[in-house]
């Protein structure tokens, strides 16, 4: 009786839907192709004027000098400094928050705190920029007088604070979706909450956690305003976090909102930097995927 009710339309849906969904998935690919195309032509013009070898081997980034030097390394170093500092802040704090919320906090606490933290992720980055410059930097300068007005430390920490809710929130979801029965199994063996969490729940949720970290760090790499406001704009190669830096993104903003003439080599350099950044995140993501797959094999 029920079978007869089936309409032809439904069968067609089953064929159409996957194709539609495939199209939506393909949009991300089109976006990437679009980005590459947008970047590549201007990048070619740039490399027509500046040798690609110099770009990667030269240790100085001085595009505005009378004898300009285009060595991307200092910008990469600046970006890495920010990313590492942000990771050092965001990963432990974010994971600890996720664990606290999913394993220790009462349902009520959880429901209150999680959305509050998510507000942190939505504060305009320019607000964070001034927060870093006018609050975090002075506090840090009280602690370490040798710290410059513009430095890598303060924006790094603030970028960490900005991406922390992303890790906390997404990891918390991953932890919560580990079945309750698995936790019960561990508790019943006399495991403490900590032991249950670290040895059973966390590994079971590892793919979600790694995904959240990669996502957050990608955002740290791509972050612009905080770094431009509080990090200064002096590209350098030193490993020192107390002095002024410049990141790849900050350079792109500097030029694209600045005075550089359209058609000048400087103008095209932002596309070359953008392309480098793109490749940089690509490599990092491939690496993260590899690591996450390795993790998963264990379980």
């Amino acid at each position, binding site marked *: 009786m029920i079978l007869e009710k089936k309409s032809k339309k439904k069968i067609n849906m089953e064929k159409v839907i996957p194709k539609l969904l495939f199209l939506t998935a393909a949009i991300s690919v089109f976006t990437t192709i679009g980005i590459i195309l947008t970047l590549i032509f201007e990048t070619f013009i740039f490399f027509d004027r500046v040798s690609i070898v110099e770009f990667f081997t030269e240790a100085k980034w001085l595009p505005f000098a009378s004898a300009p030097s285009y060595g991307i390394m200092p910008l990469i170093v600046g970006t890495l400094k920010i990313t590492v500092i942000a990771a050092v802040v965001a990963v432990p704090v974010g994971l600890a928050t996720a664990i606290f919320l999913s394993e220790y906090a009462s*349902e009520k606490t959880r429901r209150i705190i999680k959305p509050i933290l998510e507000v942190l992720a939505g504060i305009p980055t320019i607000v964070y920029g001034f927060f870093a410059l006018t609050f975090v930097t002075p506090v840090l300068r009280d602690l370490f007088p040798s710290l410059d007005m513009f430095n890598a430390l303060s924006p790094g920490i603030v970028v960490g604070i900005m991406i922390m809710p992303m890790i906390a929130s997404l990891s918390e979801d991953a932890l919560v979706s580990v*079945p309750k029965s*698995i936790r*019960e199994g*561990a508790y*019943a*063996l006399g*495991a403490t909450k900590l032991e249950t969490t670290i040895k059973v729940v966390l*590994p*079971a949720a590892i793919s979600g956690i790694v995904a959240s970290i990669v996502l957050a760090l990608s955002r740290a790499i791509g972050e612009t305003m905080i770094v431009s406001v509080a990090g200064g704009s002096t590209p350098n190669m030193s490993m020192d976090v107390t002095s002024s830096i410049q990141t790849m993104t900050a350079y792109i903003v500097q030029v694209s909102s600045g005075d550089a003439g359209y058609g000048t080599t400087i103008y095209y350099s932002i596309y070359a930097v953008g392309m480098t950044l793109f490749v940089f995140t690509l490599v990092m993501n491939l690496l993260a995927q590899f690591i996450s797959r390795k993790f998963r094999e264990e379980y």
Partner: protein
Amino acid sequence: MTLTREKESPAIEIDNVGSAALTEKVYETSNLNLWYGENHALKNINLDMHQNEVTAIIGPSGCGKSTYIKTLNRMIELVPDVKTTGQIKYRNRNILDQSYKVEDLRTQVGMVFQKPNPFPKSIYENVVYGPKIHGIKNKKILDEIVEKSLKGAAIWDEVKDRLHENAYGLSGGQQQRLCIARCLAIEPDVILMDEPTSALDPISTLKIEELVQELKKDFSIIIVTHNMQQAARISDRTAFFLNGEVIEYSDTNTIFSNPNDKRTEDYITGRFG
């Protein structure tokens, strides 16, 4: 009326259980009430459990068997909004007292659940999880524990060649036996079993039942079961639950051959198989 009978029960016990009644008491439950929010799930439970005995808890679905057995190792606390009154003494200390550390309790009191719940790890890692968290690191001892526990749970032969594969590749029955092995690995004092064989085939069930008989020499076992034959076969005492109350608690022989309460008799005779 139930209460009156409960109060008489010690006398009945001594009459019927004979030597067993002289053993030490592991658990003493008195006036235990439990609510899930508004739902009064356990009503004034009074039950004593004895060392080196198998105590069976039977009763229809939803009568509170799982609830009660989970209270014995305070797993029930994981459900939000649960309230208890009364007391449960384990080895003379009230476990419902919040100063009693649940981790201590659960190290003494192992548990096997109704639905198999292996960790998403290898078979080996599942078994050594307990010993490892309790501080055993010696690889040789761990290997021995794994073999002994898996043999104890009658699953060694099936998995000995794939100890490092994921436990989720096992069939339902195999998973449950693995969970039993995991519990045995911490060598507990009491083992709580919530319908441990409901997912097992008869041969494995038989092995587990034999194992229970074996284990009771050293441990005390409390088992929830639907299977009245199982209760009759392996337990020394049986408690019959109905709607959150203990209707009758007595020596297993008495319960099955000569129940005191009409409801017990009705339930027993509705049996089959």
